[in-house]
Structures are given as structure tokens and as C-alpha cells.
């Protein structure tokens, strides 16, 4: 069905991509070659049996397709929407070599949406084991771990510091990419397995690390929510937001509907977003929907933008101006922001990741007028809990070090998601969570 028109979608926060109709889904599914050695499956971090569910869609058994996906992925409607498919399952689809790959993400989303519209059924649990597990953080890592552990029959307490579960799915990714009713339905299904969700609990403060010792196992899924700042002059002026703050005010607190909702947000007219990832695109597109003129400043070239190509395309369609090879050096203003001074960057030799190293061109600066600056330059692991937990090895960025199996250096503590990898993806967080949950069950000897 494609994307809604730009003029329509700038008026609201409703989903941009309308997904596939039944006819489109069947047609797309019928293109699949049902490979004996499917590359697509290798590209999926949770190894969904892609040909199997696609065959079911081709036969019109949409609910069967959804059940098949659920064996590997507890959040299919979410992953179908936000997975970077083009670099995962779809990149390795054989059809991509000659023509266009199968739109696997769209088909996954389609099956999950059909299933949700019919009504979801709560997965069965194994008999109770009597083991108690604390899962900390209710982002994709925590939610999936809680679900898997509950399925295995353990008693799961899921701690979340905010008043709504979901982590970045709730407070970060905007509803025009990931509708909140979709998130809620998938999370509610997992909670319905008997997970004891404790909101408003910041572990490390509400619950002490010592109290965690009372559980048979602990799984850390606290994410990478600590926003980085640049350390440039003017950064603490009013009108400078981290992308996390800006997106949280809108997605979690509904500041776009002030004063119906109480949380305020600046009245935006000219916004500069700094950064080039998905977070930057989300902030820029959110600001566009609030009526602002938006310029995005990125220090490398356009082809180096880390955001998904589709998001860059959507942002441009929606009128976000992208300024590449430039980096802020100073934010201007007396009381609040009036502009941002940037320096042009030249691209030098490639770094290990194959991206050019940007270096400032001395003296070549320019100023953009603006009243809001949104910094989307990255996030690190939230230190509140991790810094207090003893006996767990940490990496340089403050991340928790784990093996493939989700084990930390502490025998009872496991970890998954962004807290282990640094800011990554939903599906990697889920994959890690499944693995860690499996290791916990194995440790209990079931």
C-alpha cells in the first residue's frame, strides 16, 4: 500500500508506511524461491524460518505464518517495522543478486498485523520451576528475556524505572514509524504470561544491588540510554536538547499535545539536529511534524550517514534539509539558543570501518540561525545500576561484558541488549536476550 503522502503525514504522528494489502502480501510471498539453503535465514539475527512463514503467507494462511514467526521472534510486528532488513535478512536473499530481494520485513509485519487484528493468544508456559529471576529494564531485551523465562516456567519480576514499559520502543522510536498500540499489544502479550512488571522502580535506587542477591538469577537489560553531549560552548543554553529528551517529551509524555498533556516542549520554528543516525532522523522528522524548519548537520558525507536509507529518504521527502561535511563548534545565544556555528569538515583516510575520518578545515566556519538544537550524537550504557554492581566486568564505554551466552563475569548475573553492545538494534537486543534466557534456564538445570 506504500507510504502516505507527505502532506498528509506531516499533519500527524500516524504511521507513514501503510504496509501490504492481502493481495500484495500473497503476490510478494509467491516470488520467494523457497531456497533449500536460504541465505535470508543466515541474515536474521534470530534465525526466523523465513521460507516457511513466507510459504504460509503465499497459501493465504496468515495466522499460521505469524505462529511460525513467533517460534523465533516474540515481537514480530515491531521487528517487521524497525529491523534494518536491508543489511540483514533481505541483503542475503538470493533474489537480491539479480533483481529486488523479497520484502521479508514487510511480510513479517503483515503476518503479525493480521494476527493482532484477529486477537493474540497467550503462549503456553512450562510447569513452574520455583526459580525467581529479576529482569531489569523493559526494553526489547528485558521484555523478550522476561517472556522466554516465563515460558520456561520461572517466576519473573521485570523492573522498569519509567511509568510505561518498552524502553526505546516506547520513548524513543516515534509512532509514525512504530505505532504505540503495536508496541503495547506485543508487550501485553508477554506480560500476560505471568510476568510481574514493577514500574517506577529504578534498580540501584528503589531496589539495592544487595536485594538482587535474593533472586536465583538476574538479567540486566538496562540499555544505552545515557545521552552524550559534545562539550562545546553554549551547550547548556536553554533550547539545547538531547535527542533522548526531545523524543521522550513527545513519545512518552505527549508534549506535542500540550496543554491537553501537561509536559511542555519548546515552540519550534528553526531546528538544527546534529548527527546522522536513526535517532537524528527520528528527531528531525518529529520536529517537522511540529511545524519547524529543520536542518540536519552531519560531519561526514551523505553516503556515510549511518541511518537506514529508507529513513534518510523519508526525512528528505518531508523537507528535512541535510547539511553534510560540517560539525558544530559553538552554540550561540545569551539566554536561549539563537544559532549554531559550524566548521566545514574534509574527509581524510578511511578508518577501520571503511568510513572516512572527518577533519575540520581550519577557519572555514559558518553560522546557521536556529532557536532549537537537538544533539543526536550517540548514547552510552546507563550507569546508574551498572556502576554499582560488583563482580561484573565492564568494557571501556561502561558496557557490561558478556560471552555469546549472555553470561557476565558474575555467576548469577546475565546481560543482553544495548547495555552489552552499546547502542545497537532491537533485533540484536532480542537475540541476546533469548540467548541469555536460555543460559539461565540451563544454569537451573531444566
Amino acid at each position, binding site marked *: 500500500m506504500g507510504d502516505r503522502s507527505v502532506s498528509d503525514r506531516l499533519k500527524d504522528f500516524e504511521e507513514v508506511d501503510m504496509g501490504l494489502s492481502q493481495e500484495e502480501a500473497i503476490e510478494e510471498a509467491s516470488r520467494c524461491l523457497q531456497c533449500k539453503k536460504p541465505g535470508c535465514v543466515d541474515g536474521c539475527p534470530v534465525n526466523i524460518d523465513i521460507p516457511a512463514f513466507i510459504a504460509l503467507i503465499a497459501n493465504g494462511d496468515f495466522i499460521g505464518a505469524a505462529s511460525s514467526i513467533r517460534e523465533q521472534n516474540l515481537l514480530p510486528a515491531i521487528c517487521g517495522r524497525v529491523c534494518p532488513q536491508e543489511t540483514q535478512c533481505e541483503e542475503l536473499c538470493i533474489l537480491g543478486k539479480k533483481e529486488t530481494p523479497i520484502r521479508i520485513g514487510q511480510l513479517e509485519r503483515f503476518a503479525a498485523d493480521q494476527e493482532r487484528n484477529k486477537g493474540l493468544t497467550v503462549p503456553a508456559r512450562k510447569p513452574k520451576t520455583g526459580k525467581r529471576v529479576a529482569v531489569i529494564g523493559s526494553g526489547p531485551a528485558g521484555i523478550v528475556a522476561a517472556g522466554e523465562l516465563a515460558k520456561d516456567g520461572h517466576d519473573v519480576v521485570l523492573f522498569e*524505572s*519509567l*511509568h510505561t514499559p518498552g524502553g526505546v520502543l516506547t520513548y524513543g522510536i516515534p509512532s509514525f514509524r512504530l505505532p504505540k498500540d503495536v508496541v503495547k499489544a506485543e508487550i501485553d502479550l508477554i506480560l500476560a504470561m505471568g510476568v510481574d512488571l*514493577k*514500574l*517506577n*522502580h*529504578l534498580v540501584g*535506587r*528503589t*531496589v*539495592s544491588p544487595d536485594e538482587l542477591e535474593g533472586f536465583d538469577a538476574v538479567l540486566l537489560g538496562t540499555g544505552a*540510554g*545515557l*545521552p552524550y*553531549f559534545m*562539550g562545546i560552548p553554549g*551547550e*547548556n*543554553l*536553554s*533550547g539545547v*536538547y*538531547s535527542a*533522548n*529528551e526531545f523524543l*521522550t*517529551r513527545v513519545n512518552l*509524555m*505527549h508534549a506535542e499535545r*500540550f*496543554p*491537553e*498533556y*501537561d*509536559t*511542555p516542549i*519548546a515552540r519550534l520554528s528553526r531546528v538544527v539536529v546534529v548527527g546522522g543516525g536513526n535517532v537524528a532522523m527520528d528527531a528531525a522528522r518529529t520536529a517537522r511534524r511540529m511545524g519547524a524548519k529543520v536542518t540536519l548537520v552531519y560531519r561526514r558525507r551523505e553516503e556515510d550517514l549511518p541511518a537506514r536509507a529508507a529513513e534518510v529518504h523519508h526525512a528528505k521527502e518531508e523537507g528535512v534539509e541535510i547539511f553534510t561535511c560540517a560539525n558544530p563548534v559553538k552554540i550561540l545565544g545569551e*539566554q*536561549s539558543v539563537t544559532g549554531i556555528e559550524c566548521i566545514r569538515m574534509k574527509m581524510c583516510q578511511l578508518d577501520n570501518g571503511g568510513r572516512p575520518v572527518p577533519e575540520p578545515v581550519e577557519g572555514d566556519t559558518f553560522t546557521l540561525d536556529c532557536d532549537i538544537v537537538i544533539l543526536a550524537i550517540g548514547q552510552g550504557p*546507563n*550507569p*546508574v545500576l551498572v556502576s554499582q554492581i560488583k563482580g561484573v566486568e565492564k568494557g571501556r564505554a561502561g558496557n557490561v561484558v558478556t560471552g555469546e551466552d549472555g553470561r557476565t563475569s558474575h555467576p548469577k548475573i546475565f546481560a543482553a541488549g544495548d547495555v552489552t553492545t552499546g547502542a545497537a538494534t532491537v533485533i540484536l537486543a532480542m537475540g541476546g536476550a533469548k540467548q541469555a534466557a536460555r543460559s539461565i534456564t540451563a544454569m537451573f538445570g531444566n
Partner: protein
Amino acid sequence: MYIIEKSLKLSENVYEIWVNAPHVTRNAKAGQFVIIRTDEKGERIPLTISCISGDLVRIIFMAVGKTTHALAAIPAGGSISDIAGPLGTPSEIKQYGTCVLVGGGVGIASTPVIAKALKEAGNRVIGILGARNANFLILEDEMAEICDELLIATDDGSKGHHGFAADLLKKKIDEEQVNAVWIIGPTIMMKVTSNATRDKGIKTFVSLNPIMVDGTGMCGSCRCVVGGKTKFACVDGPEFDAHEVDFDNLMQRQRYYMEHEKEALSTWQEHQCTCGRHE
């Protein structure tokens, strides 16, 4: 849902509520705060934990805008949708010797818990309470009970010293050896009062109140400049070394949503009984 077990008015615009929140009371320590949300459309606002009794958290607050007015309007037995906490790093409690706690206005609310903790750590504790006039003075009896000595200042001289709490602090540190000072009140009062201890190099804490959203260290709304470095008050604070704080930056950031705040309050007052959110 969390039940407000008691709600009373302490003075013009100052209210005391007791919220049933065992998850908060279990580990709460001096100097920490909670974040509350009154209802589904509400904002998240930080309020200091001013006393703990069993499962109940006492909060003392001034009705200044939409959320605090709405909170004051909830009768005993009513509820709020969320209370998260305890949040923030607790006060640095240890044996200092003689400690002075200066509370200004509704900032007095924060002082009893800290005074008690300092007392228990073996300190001599002197309280100095400042208010606009005698009617705005809160927790006087409670502080008198905890402290070894309690001094009062009112702007109009209706009780105690006629003048500012800062005057009494200056006098005190001239008279005797003071080892640590807490100053908690309006930002301008903390800025001015902390100058009294600067030259003498007396360890002085202030409790900063920047605008917060999550209160868990994930947004940076609460960032303050302390010793030239950016700190997140909700996790690194709210208490910081007074002599290192950039108060002007804090005051400038606190004012950012003034227009919104006026609009929120007037909209609420207009709709108070018809919008269905406030029976």
C-alpha cells in the same frame, strides 16, 4: 495507582501529603527525591522526600503551577498514577562535627531528614529556617526537636531575626567552628547564602532543582554546570558543592518554559471541573 493517605494545607499555598509507596520507603535516604505523575496526561515532577513513616512518604510542596495545584486538589483517599523513587544520590552523611542546615521557604521541607541523619551520625546540628513571614514558616517544631539549636529568620520580622537566614548563618560561622553546611531553598537564596561560607572554605552543599523529565539519567534535561563540568542533577545530585555551582545557568534554564507554565495553569483553572480528569 498510589493512594494519598493524608493531605493537609500547611500555609497559604504550601501542602503536605502522605503517599502510600512501600517501594519508595524501603530504601529512601536523606537528600533523595521522588518523581510523581498525577494522572495519565500528567507531567513528571520531582519532589523531595521529606519524611518516611512505615509505607508512607511525606511530601511538602508549594502550589506554583498546574501540576502542584492539581496535586493539592486531590483529597485524602484519592490517588496519583505514579511515584518513582527514591531517586538521586543521598546526602553525604558522615561525622563532620558541627553542621548547619539552612532551609528557605518550602526548601525547609528537605531539612528534617538530613538533620536526623546527621544527628544519628554523631554531629551537632544547628537549624536555620527562613521564611517570608511567620505564617510561611513550616516544620518549626519538628526541626526544633531534631536540632541541637534552631534559629529563625523572617523577611518581615514577624518571627525571629528580622532579615535573611544568610545573616544568621554568617553570625553562626563567626561565633563557632562550623564543619559542614546545607543550604536548601529557592535558587537565588542558595546562590546568595552560599557566599557566606565561601571565604572560610566551609564544605557547603546545595540541593539543585533544575527541570527534570525522567529523573533516571537518560535525558539530560536536568544538566547543571558544577566545577565547569556538566552534571545530571537527577543522578549525580541533586546535592552539589555550593561553591562550584553555576547558579546563573541553572536559573536561566529553570525559566525556559515560563510561558507554557502560565498557559497550563490557566487552562487547568478554566477546565478544572468539566474536563473529566478532576472529579
